[in-house]
């Protein structure tokens, strides 16, 4: 897989803190913009613009495409006409669009064609842009409106987290890496995870992949979900053979309100740190567990949080969570490579 090369910092001499945190957005937010053909025409007489917009919109309202602006200003100096107007969609029912004359497009005579030039085909963005990169791509084709989500823009610029927060993130990921290494020494897949309550900064559970033992489904995320269950008086597995898998015993003296007995969705409000992107099973387990945020180091070839699927951001599931990648990416990548060697060797 090609590493994401944009905004890559040069490695610092000690190689310690040269990482950047990037948001893993939904599928719709991550993809490039899709184009569709429309008929447009030059506005030859600028004074007719207002009337033309009104009359053309009455015949072809384009109400499914509210992001499209009807009029485009032509910036080129030598342009014989200053403005262009979208008339209508060019391919209904997917049929191939050919050129049409004005009288073909407006056969009923509802529009006074005075001031309009010869129609031409233009490619315009089919959907409203959700992110600033999508917006910047979209307006290269045709002007669109954009309701910017400031938080996403900040996240994409890499300034969502303060240096203090980043230091805490690094600590938590170092813990996950360290645990992965301990697991690897037992012959397990070198994957580690940690669960943190961001409200208190407390680490609630640290675990490594245990699939090399008796249960092939004990991936690091599943282990950590169960360790959190243990810390709340539940749990399904014993970790006596894996001393590096630990959880915080929740004491009743904590400032926390007592956790209601039998509260099942025990990861509500928690963060999980994972050295590598989780698989489909683990990503969905985190939906069921109502995790709040996931931070991972390096992508997996078929990962379910950004690579092959976007399980964290599906509107058709009943819970969504935020995902960020790139925390201590180089170290996590080195860990992941360890497992590649093991599998091929």
């Amino acid at each position, binding site marked *: 897989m090609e590493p994401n090369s944009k905004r890559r910092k040069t490695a610092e001499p000690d190689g310690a803190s040269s990482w950047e945190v990037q948001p893993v957005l939904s599928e719709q937010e991550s993809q490039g913009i899709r184009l569709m053909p429309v008929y447009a025409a030059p506005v030859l007489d600028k004074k007719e613009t207002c009337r033309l917009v009104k009359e053309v919109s009455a015949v072809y309202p384009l109400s499914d495409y509210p992001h499209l602006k009807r009029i485009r200003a032509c910036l080129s100096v030598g342009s014989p006409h200053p403005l262009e107007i979208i008339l209508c969609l060019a391919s209904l029912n997917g049929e191939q669009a050919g050129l049409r004359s004005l009288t073909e497009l407006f056969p009923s005579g509802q529009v006074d064609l005075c001031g309009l030039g010869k129609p031409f085909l233009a490619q315009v963005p089919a959907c409203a842009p959700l992110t600033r990169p999508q917006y910047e791509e979209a307006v290269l084709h045709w002007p669109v409106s954009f309701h910017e989500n400031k938080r996403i823009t900040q996240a994409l610029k890499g300034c969502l987290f303060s240096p203090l927060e980043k230091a805490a993130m690094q600590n938590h990921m170092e813990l996950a890496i360290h645990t992965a290494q301990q697991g690897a020494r037992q012959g397990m897949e070198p994957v580690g995870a940690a669960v943190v309550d961001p409200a208190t900064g407390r680490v609630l559970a640290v675990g490594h992949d245990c699939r090399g033992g008796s249960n092939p489904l004990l991936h690091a995320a599943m282990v950590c979900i*169960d360790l959190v*269950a243990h810390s709340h*008086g539940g749990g399904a597995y014993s970790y006596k053979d894996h001393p590096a898998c630990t959880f915080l015993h929740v004491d009743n003296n904590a400032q926390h309100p007592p956790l209601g007995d039998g509260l*099942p969705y025990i990861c509500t409000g928690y963060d999980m740190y994972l050295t590598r992107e989780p*698989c*489909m*099973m683990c990503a969905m387990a985190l*939906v069921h567990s*109502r995790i709040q945020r996931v931070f991972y180091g390096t992508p997996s070839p078929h990962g379910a949080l950004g690579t092959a699927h976007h399980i964290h951001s599906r509107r058709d599931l*009943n819970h969504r969570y935020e995902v960020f990648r790139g925390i201590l990416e180089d170290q996590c990548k080195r860990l992941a490579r360890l497992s590649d060697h093991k599998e091929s060797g």
Partner: protein
Amino acid sequence: MEAAKRWRVSAGESEAWMDRAVHMAKDALENGEVPVGCLMVYNNEIVGKGRNEVNETKNATRHAEMVAIDQVLDWCQQHKKKPEEVFTHTVLYVTVEPCIMCAAALRMMKIPLVVYGCQNERFGGCGSVLNISSATLTDTGEPFQCIAGYRSEEAVEMLKTFYRQENPNAPKSKVRKKEFSK
């Protein structure tokens, strides 16, 4: 496909096993858990069974299928059999379509055939939300075959009963409120 031919089960056989799975789902319902029951059958013998244990274990991943998989692993250990050999010859009977998580787990265990009752509109991993059972996921085990519709009305009825009664263990989060307003 070879596997599909080998893993055809008779309708009578399915009815009989599904009957027992429905009983287990009823037991879950009576114990305040999501009413899903399942059996894993190997060589005409039940080697694992499960019902949801989410509330009991405070672990949201303890779905019936995950509980049953653990039992089969235990059974393999007791009978000194290789899990791979057993799971690749085991049929799962479950009252509700496995969710995305369980479908991925079943692939990784290489279960060849799943017989289920009703669809799982919320989380289904065998077509309802995603089609994990037949997807091309090179690092996630093997695809499996599904036969749907056995005792589905009863399975749906139990789910409806469960969701009608307010789950006292569900979190009172914003997300849940939104979900209920649907």
